[in-house]
Structures are given as structure tokens and as C-alpha cells.
């Protein structure tokens, strides 16, 4: 670490930590959906990354639309987040109806089928939007950076994504732990047969829960457009990392998901400044896999009767 003065090091750490927080936000947004689908329902959705891509492309489309109405350009983004959610929700609903519901008893097969689905979706994106990456026109207020002092730049879009993450996480938390529907979801997870016996329509709960997880991935996609451009395989780049985040945190535990997303993103980003990006990633992943081998149930585990 030679060559840096102490105050520069503090700035570097702050900025790298903030870059880590942007990565953390994407991880959390992806992982929130996955934590619901995988953690609560036990379904491995390998196409989850593609739902992020759906959300991202919806946002790009909305921004193209907004370019025709310049007065809208400043506000369209909020509408785009909603549209991204709805599109991903509807596609997710259909996927559950067509594929997932037949495979609840065969988790490994779900994994393969959804991998196939992700290949088809990627090709669809490539045919519909082209292989080249596209980006949304961002409203002016999302550009630029906030400079609290000389040498320290915090990008506004990163702050926005962080804000979105906090709001969405709170919403998911309230939904799962404070609402009637969340009660049904948790009941179905913990004991499907008993939940059915007390009158919960478990098939419907599954369908809505799956679609909701996909919708959240769509919102993650909308957030994703503010920090990177979108290509047909954007989402699939994150899928393995996100699964690790969920498994590492302990499937079924939202707090665990936050903790693991935070530690993985920070480790990757801070190590990434001093070592090469790939070495940082290898060290982080090896550490995660190593910890998982020693503690297979993840950081925070909830005992669930299967």
C-alpha cells in the first residue's frame, strides 16, 4: 500500500467501499427475488438473471419512449421501475404456470429446465434488441456525483440505487413478515401439507410468490440500467454470484442475505483495488465456498421442517 498518504487511503477506502455498496445493491436486489424463490419455495431459478435483463430492457424501452416526450424525461424513471416490475411479474407468472409448477418435487430438474429457459430468453433478447449493449437515457438528476470534499466523489446513481434497495428491502420485509399474504407464504414454506389443510391455496401462493420474486428481479434490472449498459447476457453474469449470496447467507433468512451480500460485495470491491479484479474475485469466492463447506447451512439459518 506504499505511496498513498493516510488521508488518500481513507478516501480510497471510502470510494471503494461505495463502489462495493453499488455492487451490494445489485446483489441484494437480485438476491431478494432469489431469496424468496429459492429460500422460501426451494425452487432453483437459473433464469433469474434473465428476469433482471427483462427489467433492464423494459427500462431502456421506456427511456426511448420518454425521448419522444422531452417533458417526461425527468420523471419517466419511476414509471419505468413500475413497468419493469410488471413485465417481469407477468413473465414469471407464465413461467410458473408453464414449467415450474410441474417440477416442485424435482428440484434438480427445475435447475436444468430453468437453465434451458435462460438460454431461450437470451436468444430472444439477442434477436429482439441486438447483440450490442444498449443503455437508457438517464434523467439529468441521476448524473454526476456528489463531492463532499476534494478527492472524494460519490456517484449519484449509486446513491439512488442504494435508496431503491433500501425501499424495496423494507417492502419485501413488510410483505413477508407483516402481511397476511406473507403469513401464507411462510406457512406454505414451512409445512405445505398443513398449510393446505388449514385452507391456504398453496398452488396460488406458489404462483404469486414466484412471480413476485421475478418482479423484484425486474426492478433490479431497472436499477441496473443506471450503473451499467444492458446486453442479452447481462443478467446471467450475476446468477452464480447471487446464488452464492443466498446460500452463504442461509436460505430462508432475509437478514442473512443482506449480511452475505454486503460482505461478498465489500470484500470483492476493496480487495479489487489492491489486487487485480480477477484475483479479488477468486479470493472472495474461495473464502465463501470454504466457509460454506465448514458451515453448510450458511451464516444465518432457520430451521425448517421439510
Amino acid at each position: 500500500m506504499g505511496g498513498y498518504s493516510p488521508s488518500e487511503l481513507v478516501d480510497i477506502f471510502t470510494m471503494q467501499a461505495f463502489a462495493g455498496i453499488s455492487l451490494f445493491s445489485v446483489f441484494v436486489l437480485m438476491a431478494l427475488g432469489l431469496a424468496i424463490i429459492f429460500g422460501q419455495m426451494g425452487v432453483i431459478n437459473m433464469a433469474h438473471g434473465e428476469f433482471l435483463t427483462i427489467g433492464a430492457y423494459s427500462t431502456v424501452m421506456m427511456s426511448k419512449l420518454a425521448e419522444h416526450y422531452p417533458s417526461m424525461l425527468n420523471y419517466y424513471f419511476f414509471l419505468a421501475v413500475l413497468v419493469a416490475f410488471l413485465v417481469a411479474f407477468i413473465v414469471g407468472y407464465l413461467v410458473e404456470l408453464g414449467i415450474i409448477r410441474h417440477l416442485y418435487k424435482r428440484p434438480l430438474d427445475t435447475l436444468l429446465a430453468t437453465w434451458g429457459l435462460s438460454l431461450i430468453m437470451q436468444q430472444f433478447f439477442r434477436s429482439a434488441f441486438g447483440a450490442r449493449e444498449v443503455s437508457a437515457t438517464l434523467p439529468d438528476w441521476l448524473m454526476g456525483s456528489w463531492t463532499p470534499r476534494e478527492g472524494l466523489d460519490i456517484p449519484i446513481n449509486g446513491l439512488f440505487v442504494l435508496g431503491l434497495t433500501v425501499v424495496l428491502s423494507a417492502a419485501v420485509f413488510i410483505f413477508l413478515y407483516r402481511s397476511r399474504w406473507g403469513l401464507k407464504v411462510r406457512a406454505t414454506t414451512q409445512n405445505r401439507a398443513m398449510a393446505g389443510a388449514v385452507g391456504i391455496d398453496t398452488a396460488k401462493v406458489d404462483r404469486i410468490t414466484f412471480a413476485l420474486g421475478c418482479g423484484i428481479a425486474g426492478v433490479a434490472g431497472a436499477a441496473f440500467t443506471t450503473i451499467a449498459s444492458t446486453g442479452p447476457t447481462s443478467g446471467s453474469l450475476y446468477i452464480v454470484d447471487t446464488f452464492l449470496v443466498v446460500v452463504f447467507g442461509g436460505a430462508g433468512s432475509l437478514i442473512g442475505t443482506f449480511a452475505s451480500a454486503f460482505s461478498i460485495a465489500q470484500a470483492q470491491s476493496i480487495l479489487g483495488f489492491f489486487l487485480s479484479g480477477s484475483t479479488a474475485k477468486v479470493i472472495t469466492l474461495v473464502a465463501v465456498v470454504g466457509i460454506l463447506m465448514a458451515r453448510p447451512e450458511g451464516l444465518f439459518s432457520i430451521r425448517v421442517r421439510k
Partner: protein
Amino acid sequence: MNKALTQWLGGRDGAISLAILAALIFVVMPLAFDIFRLNLIGKYLTYAFVAIGLVLCWGYGGILSLGQGIFFGLGGYCMAMFLKLEASDPVSTKIQSTPGIPDFMDWNQITELPWFWQPFHSLPLTLILVIVVPGLFAYFIGAAMFKRRVSGVYFSIITQAIASILTILIIGQQGYTGGVNGITDLRTLLGWDIRTDSAKYVLYYLNGALLISCILVGRAIITSKLGKLLLAMRDREDRVRFSGYDVSSFKIFVFCVGAMMSAIGGAMFTLQVGFMSPSFVGIVPSIEMVIFTAVGGRMSLIGAVYGALLVNFGKTYFSESFPTLWLVFMGALFIGVVMGFPNGLAGLYSSHIKPRLARRAGRKVPQQPAAEGAAAGHSNPSA
């Protein structure tokens, strides 16, 4: 034929289907195709090693490894390191700043051969390492996970992560591994040029013979008591454990066997294709290898070979003729096989074609119990 031998060959039907496969590999293919296409088929058949290993691990053991590319790659890299060292003797690399080391090391300002390359000067040692390195790695992974009862989807996700780590590592450490291009420009094996047509024929036959041997090893495992235990573990792991068996060591064993078979495939791949690169190690190739097994039939060793051949023929054909359709086709294959034909081609054969053939021949054929077991939906006891 005595009884043990008959049972080992899978009864009369098993012996016939093995003979048909052998005839196809050793006689029909070499007659029907020119050496270019035959070499391509040889390449496909190296994937069949992985597919056979997956039949044992996944079909029988219920362990879905999404990281078989790791072992295929390790075997292939071990072979490639030997061939590369032979290709970089001091005479032919005298224009480098450090003669006698592989060219990519020289480009990356490495002046000395790293220690882990040293054993690959010797062919016998290399052949041992081709099997031992992936086997040990599989043992390490298996021991760490199965002893702690990690199974089902968790195991799949972790193997996938390991495959991803290994790819990043190989690409990142290009001075030691050749990076994203892999280890290329391999020419001779102990002075024997492996790029000539005659060498390609020899390697093709060697590959075929090794493949048939692996099938026989697989048959031996399946028909033994171990095979029955594997099936029992797959369907009711707890009961096997409560009966006093050490479940994890059986799982480790079958996982290691699968890994070693993949490694042989990888080494043969390097010999026949002439290079090895990280694109055969990572997540995508590993999952593609699973689809070979799924298409062929996860309960059938011979079906897995046909699965590997057909999917790869399909891949070559589609990506030459309709490049945009290939991914859609592959995706549809995944979904279709999983939802419609969980036992793949072999399942279709035993449920549709075989009864029809039998009716025509006027005799009754007993249903294969193994295929039935999986048709009932192979439920994985959750961890």
C-alpha cells in the same frame, strides 16, 4: 456365458446394445466418415466419458454435479502441459528470451518453469496425474461436502461456483496457464506427430476402446451391491444411513469415479483436438455436459454416449446452418427432456420401441426395473 459375466454385461439386451455401440464406434463411423469428421466424432466421444460419469453420479447416486468441466479440464490440462513441454524444447524455442519454457510464459516475462509444471516432463507421471489430480480434487470436494451432508441443490450450486472459480483462476494467471487462449500449438507425443491422419485414426480407436472400458467399469459398479446402495441412497438416504451404511463414503466414491472418467475424456480431448482452454472448464460447458446425459437417459450408460453424440451433432449442424436457432434449440431440449422424457432416449427406447420390437418378434420382454424407478420421478431427499 457364466452368470456373473452375463449380469455384468447387463443380460442379453445389455450385451447386444453394447455390441451395437462398439460396432458403431469401431466399424460404421470410420467407414462412413472421412478423417476430418471422424476426428470430430472422436471429440464428441470424449464428452461421452463425462456423460457416463454423470450417469453414475446423477442417475444412480442422485448427486448432480454442475462442475464436471472442472475434472474434464484438469485431465485435459495435465495432458496439455506434457505436450506443451515437449513442444517447447530449447531448440524450437531458441528465439525466446528464455528458451525451453512454453511460449506463453515467455510472453508473460516468466523466466523459469513453475514447480507444478515440473512433473509433466515425464509421460508416465503425466498419465498418472491425469487420473490422480482430478480424482484427489474430487475426493477433497466430496469429502468436505458429503461428510457434512451437503446434498441436492446446494451441492450443485457449490460445484458450479468451484467451476467458476477455476475458470477465473486459469484466465487470470495467464503466465502459468496460457490464459483465455489455453494451451495451444501441441504437436507431438514422444516424438510421434499427433496431427497426422494416421495418428488421428489411432487416437480415435484408443478413445473408443477407453470409452467402452469405462462403460464396462460403470456396468460393474451398477450391477454390484454398490449400485443397489446408490439407488437406495438416491431415493431414501435416511433409511440407508439408519441401516448402518456410511452414506458419505459411497457418495465420495461415485463422485470420484465420475471425476476420473471425465478426466480421461479431457486428456483424450487434448490429444485429439490439439489444445485445451478454459472454455471447457466453466459453468456453461459443465451444464452442457449434463444435458448430454439427460438427453441420452440419466439411467443408461450407453444412452449417455448416444446423448453426447446426438446433442453435439445437433450443435454442429445448427450452429453451422442456423446459428441463431442453436441456443433456442438447446434451451428447448433442456425443458423438453426434463418435462417430457425424464429418462431421455434410453427411456423412450425401453417404453416405446422395445415393446413394439418384442411384439413383432412375438415374445414378451420384462420391463427394466432401473428405468421404471426413475420414471416414477426421481425425488431427491432434501438435505
